[in-house]
């Protein structure tokens, strides 16, 4: 899954996007190579969504260039991006809960047999292929004819990512895949992201959770109010520095100070009367 010239799978140069008078994105660059996880970090409103919408073909950039395999391209629509191997998996909008896992897996790309009006969707074949495809990528599911609603949140995200890769994605953009998940479920997804990366896929992981980004990320691009604060290799950073770069570090420190001050200025709680035994230990 590497290209001959060693160019990044996808590269964005100096992307700028305006929405009316609002500068949503200003001169942002990033690149992802095969077998690499690039984390896109930033607070709400930093421009993460705008950036991935440009990379997935939803919005055209007002300025800047997008290169796929080293060649400049125009991504006219999400379908266009998909055909160039760039797939986006959205947090809540990846799967249809009432539909079976295999029907979801093949939605929009159903395997058909026969000719003309007699083309039939081979459901058993879909079941079989879904099972093997997921198994190959390390997702071992009980029964692919069950509704997706019976899967856990982490399994759901993993299946959505596996689907994108199965249908030829070279770059997978993940929009906050772990934000709605509990700790264990997030770990399931993060582990799967690492598995996907090891198969040679390039991953762009959007998140504002450093604890999720740091373990799987190879490089980190930090967005703040529409501009890039740089891209850093994991070797050059600690999670603490990363948090500080995101702007959250200073604020958290401030909050800690404030809380300490409040605690300091408050009179000590009155002592319980003698003979009182606390029920809560």
């Amino acid at each position: 899954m590497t290209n001959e010239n060693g160019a990044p799978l996808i590269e964005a140069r100096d992307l700028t996007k305006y929405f009316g008078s609002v500068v949503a994105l200003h001169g942002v660059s990033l690149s992802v190579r095969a077998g690499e996880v690039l984390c896109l970090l930033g607070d709400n409103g930093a421009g993460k969504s705008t950036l991935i919408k440009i990379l997935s073909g939803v919005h055209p950039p007002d300025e800047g260039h997008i290169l796929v395999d080293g060649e400049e391209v125009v991504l006219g629509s999400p379908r266009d991006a998909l055909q160039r191997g760039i797939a986006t998996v959205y947090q809540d909008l990846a799967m249809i809960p009432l539909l079976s896992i295999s029907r979801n897996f093949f939605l929009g790309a159903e395997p058909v047999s026969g000719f003309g009006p007699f083309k039939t969707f081979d459901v058993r074949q879909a079941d079989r292929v879904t099972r093997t495809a997921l198994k190959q990528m390390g997702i071992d599911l009980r029964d692919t004819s069950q509704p997706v609603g019976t899967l856990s949140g982490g399994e759901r995200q993993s299946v959505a990512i596996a689907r994108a890769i199965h249908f030829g994605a070279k770059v997978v953009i993940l929009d906050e895949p772990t934000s709605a998940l509990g700790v264990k479920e997030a770990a399931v997804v993060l582990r799967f992201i690492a598995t996907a990366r090891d198969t040679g896929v390039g991953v762009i992981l959007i998140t504002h959770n450093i604890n999720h980004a740091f373990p799987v990320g190879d490089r980190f691009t930090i967005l703040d109010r529409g501009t890039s604060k740089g891209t850093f290799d994991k070797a050059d950073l600690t999670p603490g520095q990363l948090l500080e770069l995101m702007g959250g570090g200073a604020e958290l420190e401030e909050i800690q100070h404030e809380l300490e001050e409040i605690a300091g200025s408050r009179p000590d709680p009155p002592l319980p009367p003698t003979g009182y035994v606390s029920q809560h230990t």
Partner: protein
Amino acid sequence: MATAAAPADERVRSVGIVSILLARPEIGAIIGAILVWIVFAIWAGGSGFLTLNGTATYLEVAAQVGIVASAVALLMIAGEFDLSVGSMIGAAGMVVAVGIGELGLPVWLAVLLAFAFALAIGFLNGYLVVRTRLPSFIVTLGTLFILRGLTIGITRALTGRTQVGGLAEAIAADPISPIFTADIGPFPVSILWWIGLALLATFVLLRTSFGNWIFGSGGSAIAARNVGVPVSRVKIVLFMATAASAALLAVIQVLTVGSGDVLRGSDKEFEAIITAVIGGTLLTGGYGSAIGAVFGALTLGITKQGIVFAGIPGDWYLAFLGVLLLAAVIVNNYIRQRATMTRH
């Protein structure tokens, strides 16, 4: 579904046949139809309900709603309503009746015009819904009244009446009429149309890409669009299908009776929706069955005619219908919750 290639997974608990059946959307409708049949077999068995002719009467009533309900069920699974089908029955019927009776068109041409008219209105419904993003409930409520009003207004302007009759001779003389009016023993051919359409709808839903897109469009239009499903096209095609099914019923009625009435098909839109819901289709879309709609239609037909055979005044039919609807919704809700329960 254990095959040689994929041996049974130890994590799939072998569940009883009851649980497997309960996971199907149409199971409630099948049980319901059988129950209703048993009730009337006992109640009205002595007064002709169980005879071949009695069976033919309730199957004909079931066919009338079932023809429309097959298409309506698919549209509802895709997440939309069509309240205009009742008015469409009246309007398409009048195209046929006025075409033959007033304009002197041959029957085949009048029938063709009725279908063309229905497809155009269906397209308009669908286009308005996907373009304006308004709820189809409101859009088609609008077309319900527009179509009915235009049918009454134009018919009276053209003919001075609200009924157009005297078509029997022309119909009898036309070779294509039997396709819509023939009888097979005591059974009218409309029953065949009903079963044929239901089988077609089931095939489309379960064994074609388009069927998978129908589920996807209704389950989550955005998710479906994200993976490349042409959601707007799916919906427009289904609006055209519901209108065409209404036109088919109108053609059958007008050619069988030999006259058209501007008020034909009133309340059929609700009967079709009720039929689909009894058949296990979710009002919110994304889940349902065309086979279920067959049993929903059967339930309606048996109830409507069973009441007559039992000697109860027909006035009570609507009350029965309401009770059936509520019971169906409650059962369906339970079944859907079972189907999506997270199992670990």
